[in-house]
């Protein structure tokens, strides 16, 4: 499929249309054989050839129509790149090589037989998703669709239930009710600042303005951080859905997504997602027959790190040099063109549909209430490292030895880092020495004795400063 072409499909004009389309798609997809090839991070290590070979070999074996080869987002096991997941068996293969693909198709895709050499830890007992400790100990929430959908096909997203929460929010809930739910969920900003999202929205709504704006901050640039990238590349429709609900909640008239130009795949996927959503009536005028209209525009950053800061980002969107200004007034009070503006992180928006689905109170329970009351919800974060190659011939390899594995994983917030890192592949025992958080407020630090992982550990600026104009 080409990147620019938008497939036409039925226009969706009500939540009922959406539900029936979803049922149809789900029935059609039941028990399909699919090869899900990571086509984002793994591209750096040959995923394009792997995917193309799967396609050509499927065609050569006369299996078109029986086996779908799908480009997906990140499966998380980046150390095993290029990674492919084979449905309906949920077998995970890493280190895929072009020359073995005919074997993979004939044995695994068609018969479900496991080939040991591609398995996690080269162990046939860890062929299936549920057998791999790395996956078994995760609870994927905002990442639930990443790696399972073709990010460039809106039908895949709809089949997985994306946009259902938007339908519910826009047709059955008042904007203030949504703000209340988000407040009840105690969702805090995922960009690193950790400001309560619901409170920010409420402040925005208390301020009079001709227009309100919504901005999605996708200028992710903290060293070692790539969760926003994983989401935008792997499941852009969930981010859009979150933005639609949020925009409705604050009654915004226009949305922006500010993505860094260094993320070309993310830019391409989100643009495509917007075009498709618009084509299907999920974005634009009268979304899902609710009477609410919203358009979202993608803006690419121009290589200024500082533009990830919200006031600098607004300056950049206004066509200025990206220079930050003192706060207050915060953007929720005076933002884009002087109007009340909400800026939230990609992952914050991706949490919003879950809150609508489950209700704020239940969402709150996903965090670790017993540890710290105002930090619920889930955080997914990159953990980095590499294969433990032990070859002394090369300076690079020696540097890599200390980092046993690379991956993106997802756990409820409050999980001790030690436990997140505890499950490593077979090999010499490792001791955790250092944890680099994927967020701006972590920095590089030694992990403390109890290995507590707490994103919002530091003292935050006092809330009342925001309320002062």
């Amino acid at each position, binding site marked *: 499929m080409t990147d620019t072409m938008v497939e036409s499909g039925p226009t969706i004009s009500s939540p009922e249309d959406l539900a029936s389309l979803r049922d149809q798609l789900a029935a059609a997809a039941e028990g399909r054989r699919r090869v899900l090839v990571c086509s984002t991070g793994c591209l750096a290590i040959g995923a394009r050839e792997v995917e193309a070979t799967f396609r050509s070999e499927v065609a050569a074996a006369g299996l078109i129509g029986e086996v779908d080869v799908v480009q997906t987002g990140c499966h998380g096991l980046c150390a095993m790149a290029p990674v492919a997941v084979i449905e309906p068996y949920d077998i995970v293969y890493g280190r895929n090589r072009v020359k073995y693909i005919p074997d993979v198709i004939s044995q695994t895709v068609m018969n479900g037989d496991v080939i040991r050499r591609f398995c996690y830890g080269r162990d046939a007992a860890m062929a299936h998703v549920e057998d791999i400790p790395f996956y078994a100990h995760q609870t994927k929430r905002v990442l639930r669709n990443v790696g399972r959908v073709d990010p460039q096909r809106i039908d895949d997203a709809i089949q997985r239930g994306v946009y259902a929460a938007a339908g519910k929010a826009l047709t059955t809930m008042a904007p203030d009710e949504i703000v209340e739910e988000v407040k009840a969920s105690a969702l805090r900003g995922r960009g690193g600042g950790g400001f309560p999202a619901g409170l920010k929205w409420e402040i925005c709504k208390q301020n009079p303005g001709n227009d309100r704006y919504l901005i999605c901050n996708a200028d992710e640039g903290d060293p070692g951080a790539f969760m926003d990238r994983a989401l935008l590349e792997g499941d852009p429709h969930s981010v859009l859905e979150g933005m639609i609900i949020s925009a409705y909640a604050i009654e915004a008239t226009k949305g922006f997504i500010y993505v860094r130009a260094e993320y070309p795949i993310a830019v391409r996927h989100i643009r495509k997602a917007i075009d498709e959503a618009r084509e299907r009536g999920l974005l634009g005028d009268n979304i899902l027959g609710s009477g609410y209209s919203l358009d979202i525009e993608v803006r690419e950053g121009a*290589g200024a790190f500082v533009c990830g800061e919200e006031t600098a980002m607004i300056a950049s969107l206004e066509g200025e040099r990206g220079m930050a200004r003192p706060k207050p007034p915060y953007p929720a009070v005076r933002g884009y063109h002087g109007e009340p503006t909400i800026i939230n992180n990609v992952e914050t928006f991706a949490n919003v549909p879950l809150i609508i689905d489950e209700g704020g109170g239940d969402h709150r329970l996903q965090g670790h209430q017993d540890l710290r009351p105002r930090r619920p919800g889930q955080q997914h974060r990159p953990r980095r490292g590499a294969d433990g190659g032990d070859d002394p011939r090369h300076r*690079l390899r020696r540097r890599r030895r200390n980092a046993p594995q690379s991956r993106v994983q997802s756990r409820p917030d409050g999980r001790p880092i030690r436990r997140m890192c505890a499950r490593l592949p077979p090999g010499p025992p490792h001791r955790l020495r250092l944890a680099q958080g994927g967020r701006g407020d972590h920095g590089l630090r030694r992990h403390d004795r109890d290995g507590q992982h707490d994103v919002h550990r530091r003292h935050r600026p006092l809330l009342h400063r925001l309320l002062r104009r």
Partner: protein
Amino acid sequence: MTAVDLGPARAVLEDMAPVDHGLAIPLLQNIQDTYGYLPREVLLDLSSETGIPASHLFGLATFYAQFYLEEHGRHTVRVCRGTACHVRGRKIIQEAIDDELGIGPGETTEDRRFSLETVACVGTCFLAPVVMVDHDYFGNVDPKKVGEIMSGYE
């Protein structure tokens, strides 16, 4: 300096119309996609066409790292200098590129084939050290692989 053809710039402008102050950055991005850099004559022309002060356009062009006011190589090699790539040896990679192409960061080869830049983080830390050539990623780069990667671009 040889005269620059303003035609493509006008076409970009027409495509994006109406262009106001707020769209100045996307405008410069499109112009750079067209010309490979931001020629001075084009910026002056855009200023008179759109009414955006030339000083503002030059201000943007010099503020944002993505913009070049001088002619650039046909391909841009970006070496990641993020933390992960740094600890996993991007300096060695950069030396290998210097050996191969004879250019350091911010420089362009004499035949205008490559320009080298360093970037803060391309968000592919799990495959560090990472090199990008135009929009293609190369992960786990080894100094020995540098020549092979570069040979793929003319």
